[in-house]
Structures are given as structure tokens and as C-alpha cells.
């Protein structure tokens, strides 16, 4: 990565990354450019940089996520940070400690970067208001998951060249998805056309006000799409609460070759993971030639390196 720290500070003027909301398109592009460089670094034999040397990064996960947590851990380590993982799901929070008490405890440990995943929307912002360090939102309830949207954008851009003008269909459990919300914001900011396709019970109220076209039928929703992004449907929502059964869901909203046939011939398939093969996606598609799913994981590490580096420019030096 060749961009100097001072340039980063100017082109990404934020102390925290709490969401895609509030980011300018130019700032998103800065992060994507940085991430492109991080991909190169990660593909070298020598992967280590010194941007975060001497810095402490704490990954605070109130909700288990092996994938996101290890991605942030690897990103921090490749930039030279000391990384500590804290899984809080089983510790003091269960004993009634408030999030703000947790923040006070963490403050006393003097971390430089805090990566937070929490099951409640707004929780990461609440923490960010109470701690002295930089905070990265690694997913807060059904609100935002900004690094996922950034890695999706990076993956798309590397394959399609430009995001502007593309038609992206986001399909599945929109209602409970922070990935969907962050993607609406980011893809709109970069000029894509965003569609959502879901059973009506999995669409949140007034979602049409969020700059997306709403479909409930996969065939019309996928028509001429450049990108088909599938979302995970959680088990507890499959058996009657939101959709009647897995087999009915798969029949009407699962992505198979027939439905994908309605998208453009060069349409690509994405999924934030972890996948339920046979629920929202046919294994044939998930593991087929048009799937970018494995590449998304690689881009995840790169994007998180870019975010940590951009925030590092704002860390105090004394």
C-alpha cells in the first residue's frame, strides 16, 4: 500500500466506521482502492505491514461469528497490530452488566481499535460514544454491517470494473438483514440499481423508501440482473414463523439454475455466508463457475485491512 497516512486522514475523515450511512462516495472509493492494494499484500509471501505496529486491536463479539472475527483478526495482524479476541456472549453481559459498564472496562485497557459485533441495532454506536478509541462496526442487529457491504462492492468492482449502472438483486431475508441495509446504502451511493426479492413476510415495512425496487417473484426480480446476492435464512425462521417450510422456500425463493437463467448471461452470484445449501441456494450454483462466494472471503480480509489502515490515520501518535 503506497498511500501515505496523511493522505488517508484527509480522504477518509472519520474516527469510527459505524455504518455506510454518512460516508461520501469518494470515501467509499478510497477504501476500495486501499483494499485493492491490500489484496496484493495478502497475496505476497511476506504479508506483514507495520501500519498498526504497537497498536492494540480488540475484537469484541457479543454474538458469535467465526468468519467475521477471524477476518478482522487476520486483517489486524497483517497490519502489525496486537489483536485480542473477546467473546462476551458468555461473560459479564449475561450477569446484567450494561454495555456502558463494558465500555468503561475496555477504556481502562487502552485499546486503539475496537471491532464490535452486537445483536442489538445501535449498540455499536452506543459503545463508540463511550470509548476513547476508534470503533469498527462488525454488525449491529439488523442495522448495518459496513465491512460486508464494502467487501461485496470490492468483489463486484474487480469483476465488473464499475459499480455504476449495474443491476444488483438482493434476495431472501431482507427483514432481518444488516447486510442488505448496508448494501442498499453503498450500492446506491455508487450508482447501482438495487432490487430486493423476497417473500412479503421477509420484507421490512416501507422498504421501497430505501432506494430499492421491490419484488416478491424471483423470475421478474432477477430479470437482466448483473449480480444476484443471496442472503442467509436463519433456521428459526424457516418453519412457519415467516415461511412455512424449507422446501417451499427453496421452491419459490431458492436460487437454482432455472431462476438464475432470468439474470444476464454473465450474471455473478454472491452470498455473505455462511450458506444454507438447499435452502436459499442450490449447491450447483453455490459451488459453480459463476459463484464469487469464496472470493468474497478473500476480499473480506483486504477490506478490513483497508478500514483499519484508514482509521489508523486518526489514531493519536503521542
Amino acid at each position, binding site marked *: 500500500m503506497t498511500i501515505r497516512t496523511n493522505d488517508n486522514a484527509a480522504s477518509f475523515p472519520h474516527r469510527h466506521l459505524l455504518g455506510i450511512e454518512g460516508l461520501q462516495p469518494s470515501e467509499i472509493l478510497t477504501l476500495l482502492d486501499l483494499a485493492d492494494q491490500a489484496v496484493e499484500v495478502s497475496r505476497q509471501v511476506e504479508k506483514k505491514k507495520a501500519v498498526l505496529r504497537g497498536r492494540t486491536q480488540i475484537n469484541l463479539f457479543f454474538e458469535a461469528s467465526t468468519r467475521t472475527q477471524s477476518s478482522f483478526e487476520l486483517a489486524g495482524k497483517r497490519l502489525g497490530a496486537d489483536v485480542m479476541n473477546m467473546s462476551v456472549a458468555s461473560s459479564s453481559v449475561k450477569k446484567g452488566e450494561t*454495555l456502558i459498564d463494558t465500555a468503561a472496562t475496555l477504556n481502562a485497557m487502552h485499546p486503539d481499535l475496537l471491532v464490535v459485533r452486537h445483536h442489538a*441495532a445501535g449498540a455499536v454506536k452506543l459503545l463508540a460514544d463511550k470509548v476513547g478509541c476508534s470503533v469498527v462496526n462488525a454488525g449491529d*442487529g439488523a442495522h448495518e454491517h459496513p465491512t460486508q457491504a464494502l467487501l461485496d462492492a470490492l468483489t463486484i468492482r474487480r469483476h465488473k470494473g464499475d459499480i455504476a449502472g449495474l443491476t444488483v438483486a438482493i434476495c431472501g431475508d431482507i427483514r432481518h438483514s444488516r447486510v442488505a441495509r448496508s448494501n442498499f446504502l453503498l450500492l446506491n451511493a455508487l450508482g447501482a440499481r438495487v432490487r430486493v426479492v423476497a417473500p412479503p413476510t421477509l420484507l*421490512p*415495512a*416501507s422498504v421501497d*423508501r*430505501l432506494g430499492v425496487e421491490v419484488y416478491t417473484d424471483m423470475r421478474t426480480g432477477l430479470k437482466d440482473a448483473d449480480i444476484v446476492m443471496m442472503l442467509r435464512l436463519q433456521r428459526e425462521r424457516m418453519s412457519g414463523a415467516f415461511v412455512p417450510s424449507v422446501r417451499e422456500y427453496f421452491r419459490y425463493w431458492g436460487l437454482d439454475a432455472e431462476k438464475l437463467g432470468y439474470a444476464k448471461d454473465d450474471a455473478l452470484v454472491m452470498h455473505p455466508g455462511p450458506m444454507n445449501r438447499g435452502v436459499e441456494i442450490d449447491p450447483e450454483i453455490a459451488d459453480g463457475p459463476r459463484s464469487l462466494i469464496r472470493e468474497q472471503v478473500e476480499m473480506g480480509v483486504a477490506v478490513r485491512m483497508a478500514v483499519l489502515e484508514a482509521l489508523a490515520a486518526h489514531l493519536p501518535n503521542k
Partner: protein
Amino acid sequence: MNGDANAANGTPKPVVLTNARIVDPARDLDAQGTVIIADGVIQAAGPEVDAKAAPANAEVIDCAGKVVAPGLIDMRVFVGEPGAEHRETLRSASKAAAVGGVTTLVTMPDTEPVIDEPALVDYVLRRARDTAIVRIHPAAALTKGLEGREMTEIGMLKEAGAVAFTDGRHSIANARVMQRLMTYANEFGALVMHHPQDANLSDGGVMNMGETATRLGLAGIPLEAEIIMLERDIRLVAMTGAAYHAAQISCGASAEIVRAAKANGHRVTAGVSINHLTLNENDIGSYRTFFKMSPPLRLEDDRRAMVEAVREGVIDVIVSSHDPQDVETKRHPFAEAADGAIGLETLLPAALRLVHSEEVPLMTVLRAMTSRPAELLGLDTGTLKPGAPADVIVFDPGTPWVLAKEDIVSRSKNSPFEDARFQGKVLRTLVAGRTVHPYSVRPA
């Protein structure tokens, strides 16, 4: 002090309020005049009253054109006594009330234990008599333990001093239970107050359903949760003939339902919290938990519709819905924080916003907090008629001020109006002729 206690520590000195703008909604009176208070009751109040008629030892206060009105009656106040005294005691609530010009408050039965037995009504009344500086009337539970299943001893509770019956924050889901409660309560002339919200439709929801909730990633509560329950209740009123009061409604559609029920001659009344008249869901901003309440704050269109319903008298009463919560219940992510906001101290100043914006006349706003609640509860307060208990406030509708957290008198500080600008402040509060605010002029 409770409804019967009058000048507990000897008779206070007579007071004469001269040069006052007297606003007494019970008499539709808005005129310059004089109020004479002695022996804990209003002796005279009106433009024709001569201050010379007052007892010679009276304290004479020149109001200089400020408003003199009946003390406010707040029909929906949550306290922490018994059981959560760290949030609010009867005494601390009464002090906050005095500052806000509230001279009578109706306490909700949502305490620990729940106020569902005559002995507990008696306990609240005695604690109020011994510790509180304004009148406190308990509302008792409609169902044992607020569980929505078995009815309480409505007759004996009423005899013990309960002025109304409600399950407080809880809604009674079972229509048959509600139907029997109404039928039985009607026999005793008891007022059934209900928080109309369908528990299934609202389950998991934490704010108004719609675009804002979707953007914030929060689960929504649809208007229909309130509308369906309110319509059910009104059907049951039609069936049973009971006197029914919707404790709080939050949207224009509910106001229309109440309007229609009244037009059909049903004994239906409705309240609204001051929060729903002066705030909307946008105030939640980025997850501000002091704006989390039940029912949730709705859209600006709903707020306007509620204001209009108050102006027309479709909505009968304005309440503070004072609900003290501490850091242990509020300092959480939005979805996990408790509902509720304090409001005794800001009830009148916030209501005056509607007057200053010319949305509702002063007389109408005051009626909804004085004579209307008095009528619904069967109280002899809420008016300045000669012979009425001397619960009186003096306020300057023009005084500008800002609510600073450190000035909050309530034991809990969860005010949605922290740092808000107001115009209008209570200068003096008298209960049964005794000054309870400001404390500096309160006799020792």
C-alpha cells in the same frame, strides 16, 4: 397527602392572588381578577372579587397578570413505591409534581407488589398522607398481579380509595376477561382504564413500524396493534355499558375511533401523553432510549392528528405518563432498554408549546389537565369554583428556560426533554391552600 388530607400541619395562612389572569376551564372563565384562599378552600375567584373581602392576615400576592389556574391532575403516573424506591418514591414524585404544577396524581398499580388488594391501596394512601406534598390517588389493578386473568376485588378496592382501575402498562389480551371486567366494574361505577395494545402484533417491536424503524434495523409496532385493541374494547363497551377510558392513544386512526364511539353515545374517553403531542418518531434520532415509550412515538401526521383531537375535545385528558427509569434500565441498546419517560415537571411547559404554536387554546389545554380528569375520576378538585379545595397554580406562560439534567427533581432523570427549550414556568403551587412550590416560601 391524599384526597382527604387537608392542611395536615395546621391551617395555612390565607392567600390572596390579585391582578391575576384567572383561567378556570370548569367555568369557561378567562378573566383578570382576584382569588381568595382560606381554610384550604377557594373562597372566591373571579373578576368581580374584591381583595378587601379577604381575611386581614392574608398573604397578598400580586400576580402581575400571570395565569392563575386550578392545579393540574395527572391521570397516569408510575412510581417506584413500593418496590423500586431507587427510581421514585411517592415523596419524590410529589416533589416533582409540585414543581410542575401537578397537584393531584393518579399512581399506576405497576409496583412490586402490584396494587391489587385493598390493604395495598390503603398502604399507598397512608404513605402519601405521611410523605407526599401533593394529592395522590391510587389506581388499582383490574386483574390480580396484572396478569390479565382473574379480576380484582373492584368493589372493596374502590371503597379503600382506588379512583380508577387499570392494568397499567399491561394490556388485557383475553376478550372474555375484559368483557366480564367491564360488566362487573360497571356495577360499582368503576372507571376501566386500559392501555390498548395487541400483545401479539406488538411482540418484539420497539418503535413505530415504518421507514424509520426499517432504516434503524429495529422491529416495528404497527398502528394496528393499538387500533384493533381499541376497536375491540369499544365493542365490549357497547355490549356492557361500562365507563371506559383509553389511557393513552398514539395515532390519528385511534382518535377517529374514539370520536365515532362518542358520537354513538358510548361512555368512552381517551387520554394522550404529552410526549405524543409534542414529539414524534424522528426524535429517536440515533437510538436515543429516552424516547422509547409505549405506545411508541408515531409520525408527525399522527402527532398533528392527536393535537387536533385534543383541540376538538375528542381526546379528553393529557397525561405525563411519568415513568421513572434509571441507568440500569435505560443505558442499553435501544431494543433492550425499558420503555418510559419522566414528565411531571415538564407536563405544563410542554403543553404550553401547543398554546404558543397556536395549535390549541390555553383554556382547552388546561381543561384536559384539570376539570376533565376531575370529572372522569369523580374528584372535587380541578376547578377554582368557590368551595373547591384550594389546589392552585400560578404560572408565567412566557418565561423562557432550558431543562438542565441537574435541575430535574424526580429521582430518575430519563427525560426526553433534557436540554429542551421551554416557554412557560410554574411560579407557585398550592395544595389545599398550602404552598408546596417553591419550597422557600413553604411554611416550616
